[in-house]
């Protein structure tokens, strides 16, 4: 009785918006690969094999998550399973769906939801603009119940959304997976690892975008034991560089700010770069990426609480964003943490250019490296 077999996946989420917010971070491509495993759903998109992004919907995001590996298990085990997860124990059904269609579905009731259209800082406001029609938050996420069912391999992905007495069911056509190889990222041979606030990175990328650059160059080095991390770009009107120096400054500036209680309390004068690891502290790490691709991650940067920036020895860049989606009410204890991953293939530097431009930039980097407070000292060192 094949028909009686339970569906491959039954997942119920109490908040479609959570899923929406996560998936929106990778919404730059038409087709997304969906991979279903014991641990959750992974949606991945890629662009021209030069970048890829994936969002992992952990099963803890769902109130119910039932995965039954397809019985006949025709699918060969995929060698390209996500490195961040344990190797899936069972076969993992993989297919493609239209990501815009899925997002459209998830927000089918969300159009009136004020919180999705608001910037992150406004979302936590208790009930500023809620009306009868927008009271999702008040009801603790009981509305917008989202049920995702994947019946058998090849069947459409059925997404059912329920709000109050309205029920919408969407069957999204699934396509044959056409997996290209993942961008290889060697986490055993890391050249750099930086963890910082996502908003800092977002701010920096926004800043650089004003020069309408082609590429973004990343620098990292250690100056007398102090970490230094910079992003730089240049366009027709000039160049811009954003530097991150780990210099806790108990300067006059923090004092007035700390008196303000409205400021997030999680802002003591901690280090800007929470983690900074450079495999070879004696050299300047420098690698370039296509700016337009990096900008695809801007939305993830803006909502992420933290970002882990890693580069392996080949220059492949991995941005891992830790995103706290506010609990849908059903799960106590505040927000749940989810991860969205981006990977970028570096641009190959042309040697000729590098000699001139590279030296120049490096020199200025060194000169301004550790902030002007110690500029003179710095010069002496050099």
């Amino acid at each position, binding site marked *: 009785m094949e028909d009686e077999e339970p569906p491959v996946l039954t997942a119920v989420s109490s908040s479609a918006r959570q899923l929406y917010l996560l998936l929106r971070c990778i919404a730059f491509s038409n087709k997304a690969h969906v991979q279903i495993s014991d641990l959750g759903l992974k949606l991945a998109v890629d662009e021209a094999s030069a970048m890829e992004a994936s969002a992992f919907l952990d099963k803890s995001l769902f109130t119910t998550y039932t995965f039954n590996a397809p019985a006949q298990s025709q699918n060969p085990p995929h060698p390209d399973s996500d490195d961040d997860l344990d190797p899936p124990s069972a076969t993992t059904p993989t297919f493609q769906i239209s990501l815009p269609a899925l997002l459209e579905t998830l927000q089918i009731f969300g159009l009136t939801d004020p919180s999705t259209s608001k910037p992150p800082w406004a979302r936590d406001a208790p009930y500023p603009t809620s009306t009868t029609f927008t009271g999702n938050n008040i009801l603790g996420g009981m509305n917008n119940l989202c049920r995702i069912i994947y019946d058998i391999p090849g069947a459409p992905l059925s997404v059912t959304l329920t709000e109050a007495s309205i029920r919408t069911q969407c069957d999204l056509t699934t396509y044959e997976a056409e997996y290209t190889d993942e961008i290889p990222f060697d986490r055993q041979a890391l050249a750099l690892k930086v963890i910082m606030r996502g908003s800092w990175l977002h701010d920096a990328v926004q800043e650089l975008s*004003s020069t309408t650059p082609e590429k973004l160059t990343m620098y990292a080095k250690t100056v007398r034991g102090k970490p230094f991390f910079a992003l730089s770009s240049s366009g027709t009107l000039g160049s*811009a*560089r*954003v530097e991150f120096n780990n210099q806790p400054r108990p300067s006059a500036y923090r004092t007035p700010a700390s008196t303000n209680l409205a400021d997030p309390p999680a802002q003591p004068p901690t280090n800007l770069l929470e983690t900074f690891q450079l495999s070879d502290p004696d050299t300047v790490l420098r690698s370039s990426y296509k700016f337009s691709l990096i900008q695809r991650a801007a939305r993830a940067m803006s909502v992420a609480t933290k970002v882990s920036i890693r580069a392996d020895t080949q220059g492949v860049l991995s941005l891992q964003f830790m995103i706290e989606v506010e609990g849908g009410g059903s799960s106590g204890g505040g927000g749940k943490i989810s991860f969205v991953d981006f990977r970028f293939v570096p641009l190959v530097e042309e040697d000729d250019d590098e000699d001139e431009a590279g030296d120049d930039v490096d020199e200025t980097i060194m000169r*301004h490296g550790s902030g002007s407070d110690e500029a003179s000292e710095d010069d002496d060192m050099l």
Partner: protein
Amino acid sequence: MVILNFTLTPVAASKVHDLLVCLGKFSDTVAIEARREKFTFTALNSSKSAYAAITLDGNQFFTHYECVPSHGGPDGRFTCSMYTKALLSVFKGRLYDPLGRDGAIDRCDVSVQERENETQCRFIVKMVCNQGVIKTYKLTYEAVDVMHALFDRSVAKNRWSMHSGAIREYIEYFGTKTEMLDIFAGEDGRCVFKSYTEKISNGKEILKHPLVTAVAVNTSDFEEFVVQTGMHIIINVKDFKAIVVHADTLKTSLKAFHSQPTRPLQFSYGSEGLICEFTLMTAGDYSAAPPTPAPQAMNSRQASRTPSTTTADRKDSRSFRPNMPPPVQPASRRDGSGRLRNPGSRQASSAGQAQPSRKESDSLFVPEDEDEDDAWAPVDHDREETLGWDASASHDAAAFPTFTDSGSGSRTNTADSNEVFEPTQRVSQIKGLW
């Protein structure tokens, strides 16, 4: 090699943002002139009818200011021009945030890199944010010569001043699509700000709808109001709005100086080391104005020309003074005076050249009439070019070192060869000829 370094506080940096927003309403590019003791942003609009200069005092506005121009001694200057947009992307809003949130800065360091041993010339802005983030921008700039419109306040007998906040309220009433602003000093102790658009139709097609909004203000509401009664003075309403909005960010009084219609008007305001001066061309009904020789030269020209469709009614409604039309000098004779004429003689020649006949599009400047050779020659830094504009309207008032058209050869030739040079042609149109 020029040395130009200065440091701004967050408050000052946000003022720079405000002034750039204002200058951006006049021109796409903003020119910078740095002297030993002051730093000036200037902007000139494309029709050259409005000129803005915002001067920052070296000691007062900056926490640190150092400028050593490469040549010129104590009067030397460093000048360049940049895209307003590029500067605005550096001097963003919210640079100053008392709460110290993201985007706020600690201080702003600016320097100019122009050295012989370096391949790049850059205008370097370094924003030092809290928590150790440093944003460095290196902007390209264009070396240009900066010109100034001169304005002689001693002959600007009419003046008024009012707090910008009050005027800010008045400009809210002006229609968004209106073009001109008529400032009229009535006899009943009122001043009327009237924004209007004249109806323009092309056959049956109405191109512009007439729209008039008048705001009458008691002259007692002004801090100072010394204007000849019955005088109309007409400026561009957009310019006025831009000025008022910026003046309001400084919460200061806006002062206006003008002599008579068709002569320049200057708005001036400032606070804490920041001085803003906007010199605008005016139009207006000047029947009540005292007779002066200079405008008449232009009047006669206008009376004799064929009125164009767009400006016809306005011109006709004016009562020109028909007396004493001086003969138009042939270009060959004018040419003899050559460069470095005194400003008075420029008046006649500019009228004779027949180009600024339409008052609304009157240029602030007599256009640069450089010879072809001159245009390609390297800039001569010893000879400081200052395009002047004689507000006094009297021929012998050469009190300031204005010097205008360095050689009017090519222009006059063009005018000659065309025989009848349409007087209604705008400066911008003429430009395309060479």
